[in-house]
């Protein structure tokens, strides 16, 4: 099954509700106030958030549909609006081959899927013939190192690890030294999950960056924030805090194969214009894809992909 179908099947449930909402809305004969409200609520139910939803509805309100406009036309129009918001943030993950190594720091709240994402990214890069080193920077969670090591075996990548409870900054430093000595193409640094409102833990993350910079002032070249698609409006707070602490420059949205819609992505794109470098659409190692705004928007609205 290709990734779009996976995404679509995952999003189908939400889209169905959205579609039902719109069908109800237009079914009442034109987009009157009640219909617009139903439409807005449908968007809210997809986690787009009240403010983005109302902005989108304003766009639809001004668009003036023909008297006989069917609900597909309204959905198309909405999908266009959403795709327009998302278009500027689609940027595939592309480590610079000139750098040795290209340093990638992966951060996020607990349980968002950082380690799995690293495994999937490593898999894709390894298949591309890149030499990868993984740094097991999650020294806090029990067995996190073992989890990454299994990914290392699967992808044929070396894993640099320290003792449980070791200083993640020191480990990152060591890993970068090792990666340089090995002439690795990409160094991916895993970190412990942390809630963004824990000041001490966020400071620890800032220290990791500071220490890496001692070896390479340009590193980390990518700081990826891994975001769970199930997350609601709190995702905005996560992006804001992580971005201010460690200069996040890319997002990975995981678990889009579930019933959650990841609609908050639209709100994030609007507010932060932060690139989405990949989306996770399944549990398999190959289930990580580039982010396509048009397809995401269309599948969010239950429309077939544009050709």
């Amino acid at each position, binding site marked *: 099954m290709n990734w779009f179908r996976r995404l679509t099947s*995952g999003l189908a*449930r939400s889209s169905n509700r959205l579609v039902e909402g719109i069908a109800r809305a237009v079914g009442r004969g034109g987009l009157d106030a009640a219909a617009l409200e139903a439409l807005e*609520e449908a968007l*809210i*139910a*997809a*986690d787009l*958030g*009240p403010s983005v939803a109302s902005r989108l509805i304003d766009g639809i309100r001004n668009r003036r549909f023909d008297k006989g406009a069917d609900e597909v036309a309204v959905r198309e129009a909405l999908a266009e609006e959403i795709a327009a918001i998302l278009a500027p943030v689609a940027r595939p993950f592309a480590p610079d081959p000139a750098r040795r190594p290209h340093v990638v720091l992966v951060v996020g*709240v*607990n*349980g*968002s*899927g950082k380690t799995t994402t690293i495994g999937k990214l490593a898999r894709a890069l390894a298949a591309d013939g890149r030499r990868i080193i993984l740094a097991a920077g999650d020294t*806090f*969670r*029990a*067995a*996190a190192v*073992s*989890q990454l*090591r*299994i*990914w290392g075996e699967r992808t044929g990548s070396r894993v640099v690890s320290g003792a449980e409870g070791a200083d993640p900054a020191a480990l990152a430093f060591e890993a970068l030294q090792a990666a340089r000595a090995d002439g690795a193409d990409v160094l991916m640094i895993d970190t412990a999950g942390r*809630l*963004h*409102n*824990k*000041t001490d833990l966020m400071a620890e993350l800032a220290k990791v960056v500071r220490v890496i910079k001692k070896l390479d002032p340009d590193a980390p070249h990518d700081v990826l924030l891994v975001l*769970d698609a*199930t*997350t*609601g*409006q*709190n*995702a905005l*707070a996560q992006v804001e805090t992580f971005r201010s602490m460690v200069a996040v420059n890319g997002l990975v949205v995981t*678990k889009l*194969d*579930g*019933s*959650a*819609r990841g*609609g*908050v992505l639209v709100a994030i794109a609007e507010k932060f214009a932060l690139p989405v470098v990949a989306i996770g659409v399944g*549990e398999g190692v190959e289930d990580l894809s580039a982010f396509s705004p048009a397809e995401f928007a269309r599948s969010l609205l239950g429309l077939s992909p544009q050709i």
Partner: protein
Amino acid sequence: MFETLTAKLGDVFERLKRRGALAEGDVDAALREVRVALLEADVALPVVKDFIAGVKLKAIGQEVIRSVSPGQMVVKIVHDHLIDTLGATAVEINLRAVPPVPILMVGLQGSGKTTTTAKLALRLTQRDKKKVLMASLDTRRPAAQEQLAVLGQQTGVVTLPIIAGQDPVAIARRAVEAGAREGYDVVLLDTAGRLAIDDELMAEAAAVRDATKPAETLLVADAMTGQDAVNLARAFNEKIGITGIVLTRVDGDARGGAALSMRAVTGRPIKLIGIGEKLDAIDVFHPDRIAGRILGMGDIVGLVEKAAETVEKEEAEKLARKAAKGEFDFDDMAAQLRQLRKMGGLSGVMGLLPGVGKIKKQMAEAKVDDRIVRRQEAIIGSMTKAERRDVRLLNGRRRRRIAKGSGTTVEEVNRLVKQYMEMGRMMKQVTKLGQKGVMRAGMASLFRR
């Protein structure tokens, strides 16, 4: 976790309070704001609708017209309705079954099942003096079984030996058998994370349920969950049948609307909440406290409990005695600042205080944060012993020296001195109230600038 919602509702009701009598239009206006606030807090749409309809029914009419203070009346109605929706009282874990009592943990990937399992095991061991066995049925995520084994070592709770290649149902059976044979009171079964729409895995969890007949099936869910909370709660309840909910990451700043949604949709109580990374950071869910926080009434009980935990009693009594004699000095102030920091800093404490949503926002805008507390400690640290005991010594030159020594400015030193004087004055006034009074007044004066 509900701070921002608190701020929203605070604004609404502040507007209401300023007016005299409350008309139907006012209620509608307020409820529109309540609706948006709830949606921004990730309360699921159908739940919001029911909630608003319920409040409106109660709010419009006699009660409001007759009430003396309409604003307060609406606050109370919304508050009561929130508690109704969240469940009126705290519900404990049900252990009334023939030992070993099986407890099944289910939830989405990354919701915190394994950590919660270990936390619950520790709680049952320490608090309820139960002999607990943990078993991981997660044969899918790399190193998941190992994770639980490590947590078992950390908590001193026994975990079922791992046999590679066994399927979840077989592991569950083996766990219950071992539990019976070796005289355990409780067997905790940690399942693999699964998608609500994955029928195969949901069937597997149901098979584990049928094989073990758990006394509790707890749905572990993230407090940050968005609108999907209703879907996942409904799916898990319909396909596996849950008896309660554990809300994790309540120590985050998510507004936690998921709590309302899942409770409303399943009718199952939220039994426990995860409130930190440490393995003892789990607590029973108090609906009344949470509802109070939502409405800006503050979690006073939580604050007092937190204070009681952190503030060394002896130190507090010593402080009270000194204050009564007017001997409150800079060392005492430093001790208070330390306590404040231990309680989670200004923001931690403020989140629990009533009606501070707005102050908090102003603080954020003015970039006042917890670093101020540390800077103030540094200022006191740069004073001589004599200066700490006698504020009158602090002339301009000394203040300049202190500012230099602490890496701050003379203005900051002046501000601290002023604050110290105010605290001292208040101390004298409130010593009659006892140590709690002292503490509260001390903190209150910190917030003033």
